[in-house]
């Protein structure tokens, strides 16, 4: 009957729409989060990359191990402190400790419902604490803004 057919079509189309609407992209964060500080290691008085044989990084003042690397390490990613405008890390090469202090200003940015808020860093400042024997010879600040993970922000010569 005509009415039966209409009802059948309507019911099937409703079920189809229900089914299709279920195929939605998962609402999880697409990875847009607070960027890390990117460091690359170079040879002093040279422009070629020089990797670290071993590198051990500790965050101050927590004494938490950030990196405990044993292979050739060419880059380092440091997650800066988003709770304060400064943080410090101790980079240990072999037996030699070198302390780096970072100062910056934080900018809070809303990303999305699933990613929440992230922080962009501006006016970055690096201080190397001088002691008798620094294995870090020179630090180059390539940019004072940390907005993305995909570029290197600091070059360290050793």
């Amino acid at each position, binding site marked *: *009957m005509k*009415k*039966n057919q209409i*009802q059948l079509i*309507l*019911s099937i189309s*409703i079920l189809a*729409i*229900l089914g299709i*609407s*279920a195929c*939605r*992209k998962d*609402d999880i*964060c697409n990875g847009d*989060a*607070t960027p*890390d500080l990117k460091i690359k290691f170079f040879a002093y008085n040279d422009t070629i990359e020089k990797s670290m044989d071993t590198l051990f990084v500790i*965050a101050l003042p*927590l004494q*938490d191990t*950030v990196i405990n690397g044993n292979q050739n390490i060419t880059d380092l*990613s440091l*997650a*800066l*402190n*988003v*709770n*304060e405008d400064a*943080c410090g890390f101790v980079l240990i090469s072999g037996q030699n400790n070198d302390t780096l202090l970072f100062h910056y200003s934080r900018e*809070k940015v*809303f*990303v*999305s*419902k*699933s*990613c*929440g*808020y*992230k*922080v962009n860093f501006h006016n970055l400042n690096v201080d190397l604490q001088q002691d008798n024997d620094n294995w870090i010879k020179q630090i180059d600040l390539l940019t004072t803004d940390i907005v993305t993970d995909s570029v290197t922000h600091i070059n360290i010569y050793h």
Partner: protein
Amino acid sequence: MIFLYYQIIMVSIPTYLFLYTKIVKIRFKKFLLIITMLISMHFSAQQKKDSIGTDSIARIKQPVKIRLGFDAGKYIWAKFQNSFSYDFFIDVNFYKDYYLIVSGGYEKHFTDNNLLNYHTTGSYYKFGVMYNLYRNWLDMDNDICIGINYAYARFDYLLHTYRINQPGAVFTPAPVSVEQDFDNNSAQWLELFAQMQVETFKHLYLGYNVGVKYLVHNSEIENFTVTYIPGFFYKNTYSRFGFGMQYFISYRIKF
């Protein structure tokens, strides 16, 4: 997971009641046969009605049927979620198998995930029509309807605390307390739904409804986004579609 069990229980109660009324009338014991009977009956009952034609029975004026309903499932579930909500509707049978449905609700919903902690407060109104697909036997008054609603919501957000999203953080981001208001947001959507109501006690109905919602418009917010909409549920970042279920109790007013 608990929500899934809750939904299964709530859906099975009216479904069971609906089927039970069938079992009493028919004397078949096999459950599968009853299901096939239901399906074939749905189509064959149509034919019977058409063959009555211009009978005197068909000429009796149908009294206008008005029902008042309350969304019990939402109200109870909100209690478990540290939220508050209520939803009422009025159902008017204005012509043969067509119903006009007007509903409204209020919600104060609490969201607390790892990143955002906020309250959504707002109200919504829906207007729609629905059509009854089911042909009742004798004096039973159940219905299976499909319908379209147009809904409008107004809501505010109160952001209590947030945590910065920093994967691999050594200095764990601490929750920052900011009582920030995002006021006067609005959203409009279309709903396509299917509903089933069963008359349990005299003039008291139990039912549930499933629907697909399409967000037609939502207001933009500076430094924030529309996340939860009262009546629509959470808005997916990548999609304008939503899905909803309601479990309600309604009462028919007699004139």
